[in-house]
């Protein structure tokens, strides 16, 4: 459909503008460094604290450790991919549980009244503070021969951060159908399950998509933060902490890791946008302005 194509081309134009925005930030960075050499700024503008942009880019191809074959960029890419897997796992679990809870809350008034206040309150509190403790618990758990690994803890944290925004959005969506639509389904003697599949689910899409965006963001941030606070190796969160410690010898290295974290976020944003286009392609386009 033409409108889908329009959205893609609009997206491309936005992308070009975003690149221009990034270029301006880069210019400001160098300008700040320049000013720092002339007057005394209240922060450190030395090459060690604020490396030149080109130093950052050259750090991409540095060997990861002395004498190693892998470059910093390859290491960062591998770590970002690993974090992406964990975030994706957490996202899928969180979304599934969130949807299930939304369905239960929609079906039973008792659970809506009993759980919704906590779901909403939990969005306002720093549940991430639990991260170091989740690992502590996880290390003690085993299901038969399967030992809980710390990667599960990271996924678990990502999942529960993704779960809350989704369940609220999904509940709102499931409750979105007009009373007329519901009367219509009743006139067809449709069962509750049919009403759910044929009406409530499709009608919830416009509410579900923004909730998915928030959940995806929560899963990514949750993964990175969980990696940092639990010290799980292999992911971009831990790599950032490690590279940050090397700033005295290799100041530009940490920027490659930050770049990796941003890349991770952008990949997820792109994926979610694709899901958005896919899910809403048959729906009227609202708010084009």
């Amino acid at each position, binding site marked *: 459909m033409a409108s889908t194509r329009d959205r893609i081309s609009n997206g491309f134009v936005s992308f070009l*503008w975003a690149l221009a925005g990034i270029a301006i930030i880069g210019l400001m960075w160098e300008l700040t460094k320049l000013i720092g050499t002339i007057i005394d700024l209240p922060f450190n503008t030395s090459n060690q604290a604020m490396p030149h942009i080109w130093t950052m880019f050259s750090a991409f191809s540095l060997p990861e450790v002395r004498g190693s074959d892998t470059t910093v960029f390859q290491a960062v890419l591998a770590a970002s991919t690993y974090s992406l897997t964990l975030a994706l796992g957490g996202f899928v679990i969180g979304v599934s549980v969130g949807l299930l809870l939304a369905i239960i809350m929609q079906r039973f008034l008792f659970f809506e009244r009993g759980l919704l206040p906590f779901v909403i309150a939990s969005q306002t*509190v*720093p549940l*991430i503070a639990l991260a170091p403790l989740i690992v502590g618990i996880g290390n003690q758990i085993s299901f038969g021969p399967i030992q809980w690994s710390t990667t599960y803890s990271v996924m678990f944290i990502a999942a529960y951060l993704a779960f809350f925004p989704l369940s609220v959005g999904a509940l709102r969506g499931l409750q979105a159908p007009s009373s007329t639509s519901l009367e219509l389904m009743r006139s067809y003697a449709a069962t509750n399950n049919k009403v759910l599949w044929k009406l409530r689910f499709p009608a919830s899409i416009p509410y579900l998509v923004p909730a998915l965006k928030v959940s995806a963001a929560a899963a990514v941030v949750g993964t990175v933060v969980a990696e*940092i606070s639990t010290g799980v190796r292999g992911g971009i*969160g831990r790599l950032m902490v490690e590279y940050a410690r090397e700033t005295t010898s290799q100041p530009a290295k940490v920027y490659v890791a930050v770049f990796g974290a941003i890349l991770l976020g*952008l990949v997820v*944003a792109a994926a979610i946008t694709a899901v958005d286009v896919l899910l809403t392609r048959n729906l009227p386009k609202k708010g084009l302005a």
Partner: protein
Amino acid sequence: MNSKLSYLWPPILIAALFLGAWQLLVVVQDLKPFLLPAPSLIASEFSNGATLMWGAAFYTGTTAFLGLLFGTIAGLFMALLAQRFITVNKLVTPLAAGLATVPIIALTPILNNMFNITSRTPRVLVTAIIVLFPIFVNVMRGLIQVNPLQVELMRSLNAAPRTTLRILRIPNAIPFFFTGLKIAAPLAVIAALVAEYFGGPQEGLGSRIASAAANTAYGRAWAYVLAAIITGLIFYLAIIAIERLVTPRSAQLHVKA
């Protein structure tokens, strides 16, 4: 009266059942505190260490508050700029949208290098940057999504853009601003807390939770988590209170316009 009660008892019942089941699980299964401390243990650790909790919460809360303040000011300023200049809008809006899924907290080590890591500054800055985007996005929405009929009315009255901004767009943006604040305030607490994991002063909630967990003082670690949750709630409720205070006045402004 009756209907109010029917809204109150389910959450209370569920909370009671949840805490009861937790306590029972710990007692019956004889779980060690390192696995899962009982609610009663957490409560007693919390009240015993009240001054410690308060101190840590105050430290992290101050970071979050300063970050929220600076981030909000920057976000408002950027939104006004982007509303006025289309180029700024085109440069910033896609960046803001893309950054929604980016773990901005990753900037902390960089800021730790640029600023004095032993000070609060890098933490406040990273919090401010995280806060900036939801404020910007929501206020921008409020400035732009005005009733087209009202815009036409202002045009028919030959109002200057500045006047339209003051009389129409800013009052229209106030509810959106609070929506942004309600997203930003919990984020500020989370950012202030997580930024502590990157090193620096050890006074805050994040550092305390991590060190209590590392020292196997799990009851105390959970008590700090409780303090963090309370801090988050205070921020959120404060925003709600301010919104209640401000909104009627903005509604009056609306009527006058």
